[in-house]
């Protein structure tokens, strides 16, 4: 009888445990639901706050005479870069204190919508323009309701970046002011290694790149010819740098349904991307390098090339390298070498680093002034020198003291050219198809586990499955 009871108990506990497991998996969502309910019930409050703000925006808002602390949460640019700008702003505005909190990029995409819906006390937030605008917009004050924005402020911001920031919102409302633009992928070089290997010019084609890689390998030692992030999301960045060489708008056409995922162009792009691994330009062993590991390898002077986004352009600055103990004497950059016959270099770009004001901010006037300083004021000079973003401020040029060698100057010029060229939007269409299907399958393609044509067919089938709605 006792045994029977134990068995029953074991089964009951197993049942409860299994249930608990599933419920635990959804606990975050439970919290979110709660937040959603609050957001729903707080909708009226948000609207009234917006209305009040709209009233305030018709005249210059009055900054509080009392000390004010602005809570600023973001993920980008780096904390060290932002702290310089914040310190200058606090110095010029003694009554203002800015409490900065930085998050890791992927975490921030989850944290911000939950924080806004949960009524977190925030005044300024960073928004990943393409990835986060729609998931966060219900808690953000539309820019046309910000208090204290001067008339004609739009003229100071790059119109393309401003338009992208507005277009990405489902309701076509501008919710943030972008600090600048970024693009991917870009190839950075360690000039010290390349010079030693006898590589005299930046490779412009896959064949030239292979030649350079062969020369670097001939140096021996532990030098990694090409470092890159092996995370699946970055394979996506690399792949579209190849695919858009066929047509700079190929990525946009695929995501908007203008072009099929199993089209001949897509098969050609997949084949060219796989060939980079097959020929040995890229090494599948590098795919196991995640997060910051490849950047660390490059910054330690252990890699000849680094494939990364334009956000890593800081490495072109000698001062930045010195301040951050980067073991590279001279660096340059260039477009992803052309792997498609007859193709043109390409990189997908989009407005980035949006600054926004939450609807429940109690210091909207002060927040608006600070954002103006960061996007259109003296703050730009402070953070833009780190080259993490090409600023949206019209007429801004990088001070000549930042880039001190011809290689760095030429490299940054190429990066700027890529960022300014017409092309596909980086992440301008958000869907789980990208991380759950395309990105992980690209890893299989790189490892030669799937044929390009078969993958193209599979991608189209998954795209049509209805499992991955465009958000």
């Amino acid at each position, binding site marked *: 009888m006792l*045994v029977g009871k*134990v*068995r*029953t108990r*074991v*089964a009951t*506990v*197993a*049942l409860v*445990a*299994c*249930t608990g*497991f*599933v*419920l635990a*998996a*959804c606990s*975050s*969502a*439970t919290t*979110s*639901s709660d*937040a*959603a309910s609050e*957001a*729903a019930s707080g909708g009226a409050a948000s609207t009234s706050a917006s209305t009040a703000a709209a009233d305030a925006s018709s005249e210059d808002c009055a900054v509080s005479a009392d000390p004010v602390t602005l809570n600023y949460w973001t993920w980008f640019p780096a904390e060290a870069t932002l702290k310089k700008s914040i310190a200058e702003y606090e110095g010029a505005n003694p009554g203002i204190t800015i409490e900065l909190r930085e998050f890791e990029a*992927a975490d921030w*995409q*989850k944290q911000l*919508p*939950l924080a806004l819906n949960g009524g977190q006390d925030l005044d300024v937030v960073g928004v990943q323009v393409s990835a*986060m605008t*729609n*998931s966060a917009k*219900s*808690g953000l004050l539309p820019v046309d309701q910000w208090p204290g924005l001067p008339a004609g402020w739009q003229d100071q911001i790059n119109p393309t970046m401003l338009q992208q920031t507005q277009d990405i919102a489902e309701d076509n409302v501008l919710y943030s002011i972008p600090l600048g633009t970024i693009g991917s992928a870009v190839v950075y070089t360690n000039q010290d290694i390349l010079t030693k290997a006898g590589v005299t010019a930046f490779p412009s084609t896959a064949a030239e790149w292979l030649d350079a890689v062969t020369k670097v390998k001939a140096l021996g030692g532990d030098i*990694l010819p090409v470092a890159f992030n092996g995370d*699946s*999301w970055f394979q996506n960045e690399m792949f579209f740098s190849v695919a858009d060489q066929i047509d700079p708008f190929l990525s946009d056409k695929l995501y908007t349904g203008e072009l099929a995922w199993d089209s001949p162009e897509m098969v050609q792009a997949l084949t060219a991307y796989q060939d980079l691994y097959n020929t040995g330009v890229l090494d*599948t*062993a*590098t*795919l*196991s*390098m*995640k997060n910051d590991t490849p950047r660390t390898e490059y910054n330690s002077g252990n890699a000849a090339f680094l494939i990364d986004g334009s956000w890593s352009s800081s490495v072109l600055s000698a001062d930045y390298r010195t301040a951050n103990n980067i073991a590279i004497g001279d660096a340059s950059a260039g477009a992803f070498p052309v792997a498609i016959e007859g193709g043109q270099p390409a990189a997908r770009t989009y407005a980035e680093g949006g600054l926004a004001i939450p609807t429940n901010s109690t210091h909207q006037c002060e927040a608006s002034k600070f954002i103006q300083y960061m996007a259109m004021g003296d703050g730009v000079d402070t953070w833009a020198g780190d080259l993490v973003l090409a600023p949206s401020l019209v007429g801004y040029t990088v001070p000549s003291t930042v880039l001190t060698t011809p290689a760095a100057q030429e490299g940054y010029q190429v990066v700027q050219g890529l960022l300014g060229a017409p092309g596909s939007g980086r992440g301008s269409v*958000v869907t*789980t198809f*990208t*991380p*759950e299907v395309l990105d*992980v399958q690209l*890893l*299989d393609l790189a*490892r030669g*586990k799937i044929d390009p044509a078969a993958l193209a067919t599979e991608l189209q089938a998954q795209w049509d*499955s*209805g*499992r991955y709605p465009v*958000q």
Partner: protein
Amino acid sequence: MKPSGAGPSGPHLTVAVPSKRSRLLGARTALGFLAPMLALYAIYYVYAFVFLAKTSTQDVDLSFSDPEQVGGRNFVLVLTDPIFWRAMFNTLLFAGFGILIALTLGFFLAVALSSGIRLRRWFYVIFLMPSLVPLALFATLFSQMLQTDGGAINGFLSALGLGAFQQDWLGNEYSAYAAIFMLLVFLVGIPIMYYTSALSTVSASVLEAAMLDGAKTLQMYRLILFPILRATHKSVILWVLLGSFRAFEIVYFTTAGEPAGRTDITGTYIYGYMFPSIGGGQIGYASAAAVVTLVAAIGVAAINLRFHRSDR
């Protein structure tokens, strides 16, 4: 009333049976103590179930704004996704492997350590340590060790002159499975402690009798100790089963489902849709996947119950 222990048939014990009134009073008291916790559990379960039931029929993202009713569409999509079924299979596979290791290696090591081996306290520490370190930290460290270039495992193989055995650990389906299995092996410390505790209650005379009867070591393991510890096996199976449902950290921080989702378990699958690397997620779809997993888990529990009943 007769005094206990006295009577015509000789001394005997009598047990005082509580009256119906005192039983009722006892039940009420017990209920009074349990009520606060029961209320908390009820709120938690009811809220969670209602939330799951509601969102699983919606198309909604992490902002929870403007949900769209989609009926049973999310369930159809989940049930027709081969990757989901792969994740379900993996969840059960890892649970089965964990149980196998606990009942074999865990049992063997516990008996070996209980035999009075020197430095056994140090061995206990070594075997138990991975179970005490936060799994996320342990799995992250392990993931770095698995790196193809510069990873400790490939480096070690190379140093031993076994370069031919180096692997792209996370790029190959089988080696990725092997990596997770290796991590599950490291978690054998708790089963060892279960068995060690149970072994301390086994009478030495049983083993002495077996030795006198000429039992060999392996026979003592297989025919005496293993059956004696039957109740402990059940506790161990239960513990490992529960642990395997917490394998999220192991998979997420070791392989992250690579290659191409083939090492995903239901937890990482659901998480991937709830918190994708880009965008606001598909909360409705993830909730539907959670409901299906819950039903499957209840099914496994029911089978378990049936198995135990027939065993009785």
